[in-house]
């Protein structure tokens, strides 16, 4: 049951989906300029909840929360290289790493905790924040490393323009030709 209800514009409290405005104001959001320059983390965590493993685990100190651990994470985009370690460390699974520099495609690396895992080369239905299927995506890599404690990282190849939209996927049973 995929829906795009109008109340999705009402934001995270009312609908569980961050509104456009909330995304723009989110401190974990990289700037347009930084997005053009290479892989970067996108931290969609905007509320004051006591939590800081993203900050604690970033090897480049590219995430700042500070002494009061309810502060929403602030992405220090100049320091972030998009290594993706934070993706599996976030208990809320709120972090993706995107690479918008491709000529025709964007890459989205997202956390995936379901089985069976997709296979490289599979074509999947890529979904946006409201669960609506917005495009097809090809599965580029599937990493399920032990250090990530059963949170697999799936990297999807999506058409240009979809890198900041796609945040989940559904299996379609198809493969790349």
């Amino acid at each position: 049951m995929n829906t795009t209800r109008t109340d999705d514009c009402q934001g995270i409290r009312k609908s569980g989906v961050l509104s456009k405005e909330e995304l723009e104001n989110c401190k974990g959001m990289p700037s347009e300029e930084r997005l053009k320059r290479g892989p970067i983390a996108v931290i969609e965590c905007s509320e004051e909840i006591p939590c800081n493993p993203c900050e604690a685990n970033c090897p480049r100190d590219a995430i700042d929360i500070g002494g009061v651990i309810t502060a929403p994470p602030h992405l220090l985009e100049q320091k972030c290289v998009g290594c993706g370690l934070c993706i599996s460390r976030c208990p809320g699974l709120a972090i993706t790493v995107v690479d918008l520099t491709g000529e025709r495609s964007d890459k989205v690396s997202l956390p995936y905790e379901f089985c069976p895992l997709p296979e490289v080369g599979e074509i999947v239905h890529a979904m946006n924040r409201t669960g609506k299927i917005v495009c097809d995506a090809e599965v580029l890599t599937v990493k399920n490393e032990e250090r990530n404690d059963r949170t697999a990282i799936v990297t999807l190849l999506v058409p240009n323009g979809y890198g900041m939209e796609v945040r989940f996927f559904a299996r379609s049973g198809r493969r790349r030709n």
Partner: protein
Amino acid sequence: MRHGRTRSVDSDILVVGAGPAGLAAAIEASEHGATVSIVDENARPGGQLLKQTHRFFGSERHQAGTRGIDIGSRLVATARDRNVDLILDTPVIGIFNGLVVAVNDNRHFLSTRPRRIILATGAAENAISFPGWSLPGVITAGAAQTFVNVHRIRVGENIVVVGSGNVGLIVAYQLMQAGSNVVAIVEAMGQVGGWGVHAAKIRRMGIPILTRHTITEAAGDTHVEQITVHEVDDRLNRLPGSEKALEADTVCLAVGMSPRSHLAEMADCAFTDVPELGGTIPIHNAIMQTSIRSIYCAGDVSGVEEASTAIEEGRLAGLGAAFSLDLVESDLYERRAAICMKALDDLRSGPFGQQRKTGKDAVLREYDEYYKNR
């Protein structure tokens, strides 16, 4: 009924409940040299941690990022290392003037008069009633978690979750991980109850959160076959003509929890009513001591919160009990207590923790009032 021999237990401190609060209390107290026994009704220790496959929040001190199931097994291992006596399959059936009575494995009575008791009996789920609620297929969210994550059984194929607090949102996610299909989350209020990140995970999977909706009825012959929901106004009144049918075979009720405080009642602890903490709470001070000097409480029984606060409160209770037995030096006591209390403050900070903080402050005030009048 067959009677068995009475088994006796001879520890300084008896902890009732081997969930996060009880385990943390036992570990803390044993670190200071107390002999500790934990008694739990379940076959396995760990309480609710046994069902929590998701990662915990908080900071490093709270083992943030570690899955609940692993935090649970670590606590159990530590307790065993410290020679804590773990007595399982043994529900405590009463406290009679300081005498604790339990039934071990349905056969043997266990009785003991410990010097200190720590009640860590947790909380149990509430239910809402509606036509068809007693049909097979209507279950609590906790039942879903237990059967899916502990017993590895799919509780249903198409599931409606009632309640969008953190429990409802997390259970919906866990049901999807288990291979069931969550049809919708139904929430009576006009907004999502739990944290945004939990809700976001659900929404991007395509699961709708129907705010301002509640269940009309569950229909079916000998099992749930169809659910009807309807829209409500701000006062939870039904909007006529707003009924919608949902094809589902299972309803999970995630509508809050209430402390399991019968033993505290039997032991004559004084109580206060704190809706923000789940209902009737045994009054206690900052070191988790109840109105009965030799009885402490920790975890959900002292106010429904989460596992991380349960662990910190368990530590305080274990520390307090050990200190009262002259097992802890004043300096160390003050230092450790301060660390735990600061950790609790951190966990109760922010807008989501505000109500719980207010609730806990009310309990502490009640405790002070109680002793002022004596």
